[in-house]
């Protein structure tokens, strides 16, 4: 599994190395190298024109948020090699954090985003400290169990979270920033406001991956013992990756709360954690752009099929199985692999 994913990751992480090594794939290699050097710009360029492709803007904004959620998850899953089943706790923590900040404390939306991200980060520190001691399937089960603890805590804290009814009233009709004012009731403006934040997160994420820390994470994924032998404090690095991943997902949650103006308790449910795994696999784990491809495919498929038939779940299920069978690298992972093989 890890050997297959190294190819796209390697190209993304060390752009200059691969083309020189393989003379046959020179031109493609150069193009891919160029593309991966400007991966943030290309990702954002796509997201800027995305509302024209999507069926409606609210869905486009959903995809942005879910893309960021899958991106954060992918840091842990695709780049560090840890499969967590508890990321809904971070998405939900971010959503409730910013929602509560606005509803109960009347904070400015930007501060609320910070508050949501902070709450998710705190939850990630606590969960990570406990879960990081385990590996493999035990790690997945521990994160799942801990996230359900968080779920019940938020479910029961009805006076803060609204419990079963969900948190309502996160109404941010406009955003006043120094110098200008954004009308967030205009769906186009709202999309680009969300994109501005997502863009910042994507840029930070890219910087992180190209840093020595990012390389060390991939080293841990490839061979934990060897990474340890090289002198890396593996446990601490895993924890830091876990927390950063949680913070990114928390930011996604905070954006979602402001976008939808509500936080349903379902945000924290373990099925939402499964959704992150699904989207990362669908798009291509360990690829930079894959999570957005996964989020878009996931949402567009559901949205399109729901309007066509009430048996949409049957078709979505069949399509997902087909993806897993025929595109094990994910959609974007497969595209990258094909380009590299084709050599143009």
């Amino acid at each position, binding site marked *: 599994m890890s050997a297959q994913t190294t190819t796209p990751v390697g190209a993304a992480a060390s752009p200059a190395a691969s083309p020189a090594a393989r003379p046959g794939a020179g031109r493609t290699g150069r193009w891919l190298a160029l593309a991966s050097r400007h991966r943030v710009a290309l990702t954002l360029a796509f997201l800027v024109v995305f509302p024209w492709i999507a069926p409606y803007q*609210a869905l486009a904004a959903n995809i942005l948020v879910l893309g960021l959620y899958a991106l954060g998850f992918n840091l842990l899953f695709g780049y560090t090699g840890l499969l967590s089943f508890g990321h809904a706790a971070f998405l939900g923590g971010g959503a409730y954090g910013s929602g509560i900040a606005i509803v109960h404390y009347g904070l400015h939306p930007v501060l609320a985003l910070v508050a949501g991200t902070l709450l998710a980060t705190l939850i990630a520190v606590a969960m990570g400290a406990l879960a990081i001691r385990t590996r493999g399937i035990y790690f997945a089960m521990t994160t799942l169990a801990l996230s359900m603890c968080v779920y019940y805590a938020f479910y029961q804290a009805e006076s803060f979270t609204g419990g*079963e009814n969900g948190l309502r009233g*996160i109404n941010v009709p406009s955003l006043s920033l120094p110098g200008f004012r954004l009308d967030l009731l205009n769906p186009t403006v709202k999309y680009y406001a969300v994109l501005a934040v997502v863009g910042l997160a994507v840029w930070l994420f890219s910087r992180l991956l190209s840093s020595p820390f990012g390389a060390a994470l991939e080293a841990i994924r490839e061979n934990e013992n060897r990474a340890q032998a090289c002198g890396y404090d593996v446990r601490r690095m895993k924890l830091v990756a876990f927390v950063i991943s949680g913070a990114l997902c928390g930011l996604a949650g905070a954006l*979602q709360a402001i976008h*939808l103006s509500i936080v349903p308790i*379902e945000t924290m449910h373990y099925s939402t954690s499964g959704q992150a795994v699904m989207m990362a696999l669908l798009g291509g784990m360990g690829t930079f752009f894959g999570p957005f491809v996964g989020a878009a495919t996931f949402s567009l498929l559901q949205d399109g099929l729901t309007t066509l038939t009430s048996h949409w779940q049957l078709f979505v299920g069949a399509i997902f199985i087909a993806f897993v069978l025929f595109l094990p690298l994910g959609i974007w992972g497969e595209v990258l692999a094909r380009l590299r093989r084709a050599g143009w």
Partner: protein
Amino acid sequence: MTGFDRRGLLRGGAAASALALAAPALLRNAAAQGKPIRIGFPVPLTGAFGAEANDQVRAAQLAIKAFNEAGGFEGRQAELLVRDDKLNPGEAATRTLELIEKDQVNFLVGGLSAAVTLSINNVARERGVIYNSITQSDAINEAKDFGRTTFHEALNPHMTAGAVGRHVFPKFGKRVAFLSADYAYGHEMMRGFKRAGEASGIQVVADIRHPIGASDYSAFLPRIAALKPDVLCLCNFGRDQVVSIQQATEFGLKRTTKLVAPVLLFTSRKAGGEAFDGVIGGTSYYWRLEDTVPTAKAFNDRFRAAYNGAVPSDYGALGYAGVRSVLEAVKAAKSVETDKVVAAMEGLKADFYKGPQSFRKCDHQSIQSVLVVESKSKDMKTPDDVFTIVGTEGPDERFLRSCDELGHKA
């Protein structure tokens, strides 16, 4: 080339893009006349309440059809835009945004489950779009969730449980046990029962909560059976209700105790079968109302004619009433403008399908009758004849929580 510098280009570009952004809005206003009146209808077509939701759609279509056959409003026809909210509040919020922003609906009707209806309501009230909710919820009446465009066509737990309690407690006894699903709806129903019980001085012998979606009640039922209460109130819904009533029947609880549910759904009863025999509960509508109420007869006949002799369910009828209220208000207001339609809905004196109804001014709750029905499986006129109407509590504001209590300032 001096006139074509970078600055000028930017300025021109900005103006052009501003025009491009504004153009659709301008065109839209021009084309508003003669366009159909669009009503967004988000309901959970898939999920646990799919059967109820599909019945709501069928009934709502009848209201649309009748409106259009009568010539519409100033030549404008009505149109129903059905969306599947999958019983998920987040999906419902997204779909509501789609309906408002992309489809430019004039009104919204729909929702099934409290969390979903509150979510639709929050999105709609922020954008000043009239939303007529057709599912049970107490929270939607409260000042915190209420908006000037919020309307509640359905009963709320307080009214429903209250009516059932006032009917049952004097008749069957004062020793009452509660078995409630541990979430907002269960708590609201229980609060309604307890309030109604204060008047007749009930004594609560057990107050047991079960997790929502429980499939095994054998841990709770023997405890309740040992207490031999006169009445057992099952404050749960849907599948939970069917399963808990079936298991209570198997435990022989019915020999000593009257089983009472706040809401008896037509669809649940049909799924649950004979286990429901003798269970008493409340409902907003039951098709046998046609024996006494002429508008119910007319509504049933239309429904039967359109759908191969089937009768409308309680929640289905709410879909009809929800859409019809809005369309009648449009006719009365002679406008589709939000402010005028809100005023018209506040003044509406309706008898659409179950007798007189009107919206209370402070919280826009529909004041209407509550039926108390008892389930049966003998002496049935047709296979759909599953209830006997044993009591009716007429439309009266004193059965609602006061505007003050809900936080509405006078």
